[in-house]
């Protein structure tokens, strides 16, 4: 039977000692590691002084940007003075006060008459009961201006003459009372009034219809008529008395277009037209500092522009259902998205012409797909996607929400404007960093 050889159990102290001694230096390194993060004040002070120089450099670059802006006074005028001027113009032209509303010129033709043979054996026509009361109502209405009244039974070319007046622009509306106008009203049936409108200019259609409606209201009241049906409307988000409805509804569109468009047009050339950037890059100034100084400058211009817009809007009777702060931030964000888009265009354009063409394309697409002219929901899906990416389609509902409905700024539209602006800032920094400059 084989015996298992037992190895004598001896302790190798030497080896053990070696192992321990090997561990020792580890303690040393650990000690070193712990002692390493000693505060290096010199380094900190150097870093702080570097930061100071960088901040100073950026500040000087900002001053340079302002000086460059000041040399192009027309551009500055465009950015700061024109937008509030437009608001003032809107305020002066878009009012609801009746005295200030121009009445709609019209012609009235009545076919509602009795024709009979008079004792002298001549054919004679006599206007029916309700024709002249309606003529009176039209005359009473401040929204209509009766240019001429025709008794169609006697003047057979009345409609032709009225149509010619409509073509020439002398009148905007032809009102026509049908043959059975009086009979229908007397029998308690709805009396029809034919209305021919000049639809060549879309803005007159609603105004013309309102004017006709006004004359009917007067006619019904004056003659104690009971209308066959009653239209009962409930209006939400109405503008309080004393504020102009027209001005307040149109200012929303104007504000978003102006803030976005002017920020865009101001910034599209900031990089592409500054030739000495190539030479500046042969100094210690960094590309990021150059671009940051541009953003700071144009953001300050934007703040001034938005402030003036808000002031001019308020002075012209802008009603804000929400808060003034929200409106200011919203306008700033719309402008900032235009600014970032402009800098983005400028950073990747090789020439001024290219930047201008890109501006035109971007601005037109942004306006057309903003949802102001065509509801976004009615667009094909691919256009809807593009529309929702573009800032202007978020700017308009954001402003409407704040101004007309009293909504808070916080919501999807604001977040999207913020996101798209941040993305464009990042992209413009990346492009500018990679842009090739050679002197």
């Amino acid at each position, binding site marked *: 039977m084989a015996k298992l050889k037992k190895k004598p159990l001896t302790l190798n102290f030497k080896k053990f000692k070696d192992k321990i001694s090997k561990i020792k230096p580890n303690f040393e390194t650990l000690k070193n590691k712990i002692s390493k993060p000693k505060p290096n004040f010199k380094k900190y002070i150097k870093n702080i002084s570097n930061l100071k120089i960088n901040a100073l450099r950026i500040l000087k670059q900002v001053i340079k940007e302002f000086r460059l802006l000041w040399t192009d006074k027309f551009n500055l005028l465009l950015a700061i003075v024109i937008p509030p001027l437009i608001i003032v113009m809107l305020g002066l032209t878009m009012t609801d006060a009746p005295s200030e509303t121009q009445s709609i010129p019209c012609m009235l033709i009545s076919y509602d008459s009795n024709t009979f043979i008079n004792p002298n054996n001549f054919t004679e026509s006599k206007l029916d009961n309700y024709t002249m009361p309606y003529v009176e109502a039209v005359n009473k209405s401040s929204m209509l201006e009766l240019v001429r009244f025709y008794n169609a039974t006697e003047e057979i070319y009345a409609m032709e003459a009225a149509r010619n007046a409509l073509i020439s622009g002398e009148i905007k509306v032809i009102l026509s009372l049908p043959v059975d106008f009086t009979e229908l009203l007397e029998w308690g049936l709805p009396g029809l009034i034919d209305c021919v409108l000049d639809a060549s200019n879309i803005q007159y259609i609603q105004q013309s219809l309102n004017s006709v409606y006004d004359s009917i209201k007067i006619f019904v009241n004056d003659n104690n008529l009971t209308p066959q049906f009653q239209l009962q409307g409930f209006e939400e988000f109405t503008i309080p008395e004393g504020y102009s409805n027209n001005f307040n509804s149109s200012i929303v569109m104007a504000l978003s277009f102006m803030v976005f468009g002017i920020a865009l047009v101001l910034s599209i050339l900031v990089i592409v037209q500054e030739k*000495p950037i190539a030479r500046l890059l042969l100094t210690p100034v960094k590309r990021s500092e150059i671009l940051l100084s541009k953003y700071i400058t144009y953001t300050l211009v934007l703040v001034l522009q938005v402030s003036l817009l808000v002031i001019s809007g308020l002075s012209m009777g802008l009603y804000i259902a929400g808060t003034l702060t929200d409106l200011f931030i919203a306008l700033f964000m719309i402008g900032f998205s235009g600014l970032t888009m402009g800098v983005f265009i400028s950073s990747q354009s090789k020439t001024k012409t290219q930047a201008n063409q890109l501006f035109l394309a971007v601005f037109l697409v942004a306006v057309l797909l903003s949802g102001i002219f065509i509801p976004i929901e009615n667009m094909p899906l691919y256009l809807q996607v593009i529309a929702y990416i573009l800032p202007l389609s978020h700017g308009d509902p954001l402003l409407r929400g704040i101004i007309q409905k009293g909504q808070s700024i916080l919501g999807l539209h604001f977040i999207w404007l913020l996101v798209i602006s941040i993305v464009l800032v990042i992209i413009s920094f990346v492009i500018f960093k990679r842009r090739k400059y050679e002197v």
Partner: protein
Amino acid sequence: MVDVNNLNVKFGEKHVVHDVSFTVDKGEIIGLFGISGAGKTTIVRVLTCQIEKKHWTGNVMVTGLSPEKKSNHSKILSNIGYVPQLELLNLYFELDPMVNVEVFTSTYGMNKKRAKETAEELFKILDIPRDTWKKRVEKMSGGEKKRLSMAIGLIHNPDVLFLDEPTTGVDASKRYDILSYLKKLNQKLNTTMFIITHDLESALICDKVAILKDGRLLEFDTSQNLISSLPSEGLIARFTIEDLNEKLIAFIKKFPSIRRIIRVGNEAIEVLMENFEENLPKLIEYMVDNNITITSMSKDIATFRRYFQIRIQKEEEEESSLKEVKVIRK
């Protein structure tokens, strides 16, 4: 001050600078000469941190720092100045000279007062009229813009100043003014200057000249040394000959001691030969004996322009003979 060793620059497959080496000391004016595509601008772009390291190899030191490391770029750019060929790239035309100065000095962290003092000093040296200091740059004359551009390049008192074609686009009469201003600045400020140029007259103010061709450094020495390296230490005989043509030149070339004939006009040639003083009478005799009508004759020392022409010609001849050898071998 500037040390370049075995610099090679490649853009993809294109090898634009081949093994260039040279050293420049403090206060020297160096002229980089060469026809277009010689690699002058590329070398300067490496020295001014404009070309990424992936495109070049070799040891390059500018003011004791290597442009190889990105962390050195800011320091190098603080130590150097650059005057581009076009003022449009260097100056804000809409602003006045003093504001231009402020824009650039702020990038170096200079304070306003010091910047103003330095600018005034430089403007005086460069004769920039005081009445233009507060006017828009666009209203200044071409020469004034050029000088302002030079002042801005020197505003932070750099150790090295690079000038790209400083005399291009300047009237012939003003060219020498620009060169003398540069010399004056160099003497006053002891700034090392690199002049990239096609204008061979610039060699007049250069302590050393570098001749480049197809990315290769052919020569780097003083212009006097280069001229002296020509046969008979650069002595040249200039002949005006009636009815001069290529056949006639080829015939004169057969004279044994002639090293090179350069046609310098419709009826003029310049001749370089060995043992000039001894062989010149013999050459005249040779021409007269062979019914060549010499209308005039003069002797002179070759200019740098002539040296440059001869050196480039020689290089081209060597290149074409090398090509011929290659074709024969094939």
